[in-house]
C-alpha cells in the first residue's frame, strides 16, 4: 500500500512546530505515533500535502508530577502511560484505558495526544481523562489556551482545535483520598479492538460514605465521548450499592445515542452502556474504598 506524496517537516521545538503549523494551516497534519494518520493516509482517507513530525520535540515527552497536578506530554505513548507508576497511583482508569488500546506494538507508537486529536468516538483515552476532569493545553505561535477536555470534542474527527494549533499537554488534578475511577471497554476479541462501547466512571465519597461527586462518561455511543448527567444525578448524594449502580447504568443507557453500524446495533450498544456503566462504577467504588 502506498502513501501519497507529501512534504515532511521535523521541528525540534514546540515554537518551531507552531510556526510551521501557522504557516501551513489546513494543508498540514501533525504526526506523532502515526497509528491513526499513517493508516488513514494509506487508506486514502487523508492526503495532507505537509506532514509535521513531532517526534523530535523532547518537551512533548515530559511527564511532570507535583503540587497535586500531573502534566502529561502530548507525545508520551500509550505504553509509557500504561506502565507509569505515577499514572497508576493516581489515575488507575487512565492506566487501564491506555493499556487497552490496540495491541502492545501499537501502544509503543500511539501517543495520548494523537488519540485525542483524532477524535474517534470509540477512542480509549478520552473517557477516563474526562472522568478525571482533564484539561488540554493548545498552543500556537501567538500563545496558548487551556481547554477542559469536556469542551474539546465536536464530532467524529472534529475538535475545537484551530488548524495552526498543537495539543502539547494534558493536565490532570490528582483526585482526593476517598475517590476512585474505573474504565471498561467491550470489544468482540480480547485485544486489537475498537470499542463497541466503553465507559469510565469517577466517584468521590463523602465522610459518611455517600457519593459527593460522580462523573460518568461513555464512548462509542454518540458523535463524541458522552457525559451522562442522568446517571450522575442518580448517584450524587446517595450511598453506593449494587442497586444504585444498576439504576445509574439504566440512566446512562437512556442518555446514550448510539447508531446502528457494521460493528453492532444501536439497541445492543445501549444495553451495554447500562452494563458497562454499572461495572465501571463498581470499579470506582472499590478503589474509593481502598484509598
Amino acid at each position: 500500500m502506498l502513501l501519497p506524496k507529501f512534504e515532511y517537516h521535523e521541528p525540534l521545538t514546540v515554537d518551531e512546530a507552531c510556526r510551521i503549523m501557522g504557516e501551513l494551516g489546513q494543508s498540514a497534519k501533525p504526526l506523532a505515533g502515526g497509528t491513526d494518520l499513517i493508516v488513514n493516509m494509506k487508506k486514502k482517507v487523508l492526503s495532507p500535502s505537509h506532514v509535521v513530525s513531532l517526534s523530535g520535540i523532547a518537551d512533548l515527552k515530559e511527564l511532570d508530577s507535583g503540587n497535586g497536578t500531573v502534566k502529561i506530554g502530548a507525545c508520551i505513548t500509550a505504553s509509557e502511560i500504561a506502565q507509569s507508576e505515577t499514572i497508576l497511583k493516581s489515575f488507575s482508569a487512565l492506566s487501564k484505558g491506555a493499556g487497552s488500546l490496540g495491541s502492545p506494538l501499537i501502544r509503543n507508537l500511539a501517543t495520548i495526544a494523537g488519540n485525542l486529536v483524532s477524535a474517534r468516538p470509540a477512542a480509549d483515552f478520552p473517557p477516563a481523562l474526562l472522568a478525571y476532569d482533564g484539561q488540554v493545553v493548545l498552543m500556537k505561535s501567538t500563545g496558548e489556551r487551556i481547554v477542559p477536555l469536556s469542551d474539546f470534542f465536536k464530532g467524529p474527527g472534529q475538535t475545537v482545535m484551530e488548524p495552526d494549533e498543537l495539543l502539547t499537554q494534558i493536565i490532570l488534578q490528582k483526585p482526593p483520598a476517598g475517590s476512585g475511577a474505573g474504565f471498561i471497554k467491550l470489544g468482540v476479541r480480547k485485544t486489537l479492538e475498537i470499542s463497541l462501547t466503553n465507559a469510565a466512571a469517577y466517584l468521590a465519597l463523602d465522610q459518611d460514605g455517600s457519593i459527593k461527586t460522580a462523573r460518568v462518561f461513555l464512548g462509542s455511543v454518540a458523535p463524541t465521548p458522552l457525559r451522562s448527567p442522568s446517571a450522575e444525578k442518580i448517584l450524587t448524594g446517595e450511598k453506593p450499592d449494587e442497586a444504585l449502580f444498576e439504576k445509574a447504568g439504566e440512566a446512562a443507557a437512556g442518555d446514550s445515542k448510539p447508531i446502528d453500524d457494521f460493528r453492532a446495533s444501536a439497541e445492543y450498544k445501549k444495553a451495554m452502556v447500562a452494563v458497562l456503566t454499572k461495572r465501571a462504577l463498581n470499579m470506582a467504588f472499590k478503589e474509593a474504598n481502598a484509598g
Partner: protein
Amino acid sequence: MSEYDVINSRAPRLDAPDKATGRAKYIDDLKMPNMLYGALLQSPFAHAKILNIDTSRAEKLPGVKRVITAKDIGTVNYGISPARYDETVFCTDKARYVGDEIAAVAATDLETAHEALSLIQVDYEELPAILSIEEAMAEGAPAIQDKFPNNIGAEVHQEFGDVDAALKECDLVRTDTFINKRQDGAFIEPHGCVADFDRSGYLTLHSSAQSPHYTMRNVAMVLGLPIGKVRVVKPYVGGGFGPKMEATPMDYCASFLSKVTGCPVKMNYTREQVFLHSRARHQFVHKLTTGVKKDGTIVALANECHMDGGAYSSFGIATVYYAGSLLGAPYRLKNMKYDGYRLFTNKPACGAQRGHGGVAARAAWEQQVDILAEDLGIDPVEMRLRNSMEAGDVTCNDFNTSSFGMKECIQAVADGSDWKSKKGKLPEGKGIGVATGFFVSGAGYPIYRSETAHSTITIKLSDDGGIVHVFSGSAEIGQGSDTTIGMIAAEAVGVPLSDVRVESGDTDFGVDLGAYSSRQTLMTGHATKDAAENIKAQVLEVLSEEMGIPVEEMDVKRGLIVFKNGSPDFQKVRTIYVKEHRGFTDSPKEGSLTFKEAARLAYLRKGNIVGTGKYSPGELGGKFKGATVGTSPAYGPSAQVVEVSVDMETGQVTVDNMNDAHDCGFAINKTSVEAQMEGSLSMGLGEALYEEVKFDDKGNILNANLGEYKLATALDMPPVNAIIVESNEPAGPYGAKEVGEGAIMPTIPAILNAVYDAAGVRVWELPLTPERVYKAIKEKEAKEKEKK
C-alpha cells in the same frame, strides 16, 4: 522404544531454522534485475456492463511498459474445475463483483503502475446487483452468468436408503436451520507472483501457490503455452488453507506481461485485494431434519443446503457435493438425503477453505445431535459413542473406512477434559460441549479428469553417497510436508533425517496435485516411500553383487548396513571409498559398513542412483453421480471437548480450554500433527466467534482488513490439549493419514454446545458475537417470564 528410527518422533522441521532467522524467502522477497511491477484495475461495481475501456492515457505515462485488457490476453475460459470453466482473466462484457479484473499494467515501479491505473478510462453501465441467496433465487432476478439463467450454478440431489420412510419409524424427529457467514482464508502472507519469461520461450512463474501443478496447467492453457515450457515454482508460502489452490489473475497477467515486455514482472495483492479475491469459505444455509430412535440411534437425515457462491464457480462444484457427502460419517447412518444448491451472487467467488463444504454442515448437525441427545435424556458423549462407526464400516454413500479411531477419539477427549465430573455440574455462565467430525485424506480423483498419478517422487543420491536428495512437486505451505516427506524417505532408505535433503514445490520435479484435501502425507508420503525403497534396493543390489550376499540378508538402518547373518568382511568396500577420498577427514571409521560407502559403490558401478515412486488411489467410491467427491483412500475422524465462559450480561463468549483428539492413522511427526490440530482449532474458533466478511448494500466489503475481520489473537485462543490417536491406516504410508483439515470439523459445534451448556441458548447463526448471544439470552429470559 519405537520400532522406527526416524518417523513417529518430534523431529524439528527442516525449514524451521531458515524461517526463524529471516532467511526463508517468500514471494515478495524475490527480486530480479530489470523487474517490472504490475497492478490490476478492478471493477468498483458489483454488477455492471462494460461499455468501453480506453487505456491510451495510461499507456503514455512515462514508466509504463504495457497495459493489457481482455483483447490482449485473450478470453480462454478457465476455472479450477473443468466442469465449470466460467472465468476469463479479464472481464469481457461485464463485471460481476466489486474486484472483478478489468485490466493490468506493468511499469518500472509500483507508484507509476498505480498512477497508470487511475488513467484507464472505463465506461460502465451499472446493473442491479444480487447480494444474497434470496435475491439470487427471486423471480425475475437478473442472470449473473448467461449459462445459468436462474443463478443456480450447481445443483445436487442424492438419496441413500429411504429417508421419508425411515423418518416415519423414528421416535423423535427435529428440523433446524443453520447459517454461517463467508469466511476469509486470512493467511498472513497475501498472494503474489513473479513471472519470468526468458528469451527462449520458457516461462518460470514463481507463485505463492498451494498447487504448482494446477497453476502450471491453467497458465499454460489460458496463455496457449506448451505445458513443458511452463515451470511453476513456489517459494516458502505463508499459509494457504485452500484459497491459494487456484492460479490468481495475477499469475496469468504477470506471465503474459513478462512475455510481452521481455522483463520479469512482479505482482502482489494488498490485504484488501486478498479479501476481494476470496476463493474462501462459502456461506451455507443448512436445513437439517434428523430422526432418531429412543435409544439414541441416528436413523435418518435430510439435508437441504443453499450456498452463496459469489460470481464464479471456483471450487464450488466440489463444495456443493461435500456439503452433503461429509455428513455420511462418522455415525452409522443408513438413510441420508441431500439437496444442495450453489447460487451465484455479485460477490467475490467462494472456493475451498480448510474443511471445505463439511465445516458448516458439521456445525449444524452436531448441534442438532446434541439437542436430540438431551431430549432423549442421553449424555452427549454417550450419544456419539453409541452411533460411531468403526474401522471397516462403509457409509451409506460408499466411503470405505479402512481405519477409523472415532470411538478412541471421543473417549480420549472425554477423559482429557474430565467430562464426567463437569457435564451438568458447572455454574451458570460456564459450559462444556462435545462434538465430532471427520475428513477425507486426499480427494480420490484429481480436479481434472485424468489417469495421472496423484503424486510422483524422484530421489537421487549424492555421488558420494552421503545425501538422499528428494525432489517433489508437492507444496510445503507451513503444514510441514517437506519434513514429513524427508522423514519418510529417511525411514524407508534407513538413514538419519540429517542425511536427507528435500526440495519441493517445483513443477520441474514432477506431478504432485498439491496441498489440498489433506492429501500430501498419505499420497506424497506413499510415493516417497516407494521411491526411497527403490533407492535402498538399488544400493543393496550393487552391494549384494560386490559382497556375494543375497539382498534379503541385508538391510539399512540408521545409516548403517545391517547383515542379518553374521558379520561379513566389508573392508574391500571401505577401501574403495577411502581411496577415493584421500585428504577427507570425515571418512567412515565405524565398525559397521555405512550406507554412504555402499551408495558410493553403487554410483561407481551404475552411475547416478535415481529412484522414482508414484501414487494413485485406484478405483474408489460408489457409482452414483457425484460419488467421486468425498471418496478418498482414508478418512480421519476427530473429537473435541471445549469449555467456555459466557458473560451473561454482555453475551461475550470466552473459550477457556480445548481438548482435541484426532486419528491421524500414524503420526510421522508428532509435533507437526499436534501443530496442525492447534491451528485448525484456532481457525474454527475464529469462525465460531468472530470471523465474517461483511458487505454493504452495493456489494462493497466493509471489513477488508485484519482489524475488522477478526482472527483469534493469542489472548483469544485458550490452551489446547492435542491428543494423537493412531489407528494404523492400511492405505497410508506407515499407516499415516490426514490431520490438516479434519481437525477443524468439531470445533464450531463443540463451542455451540458448550455455549448452550453455559447460557442455556441454542444459537443457529454464526458468528457468536456478543450481540448475537446477548439477544439469544434475552429472548430466553423473556420466554421464561411469559411462562410464569
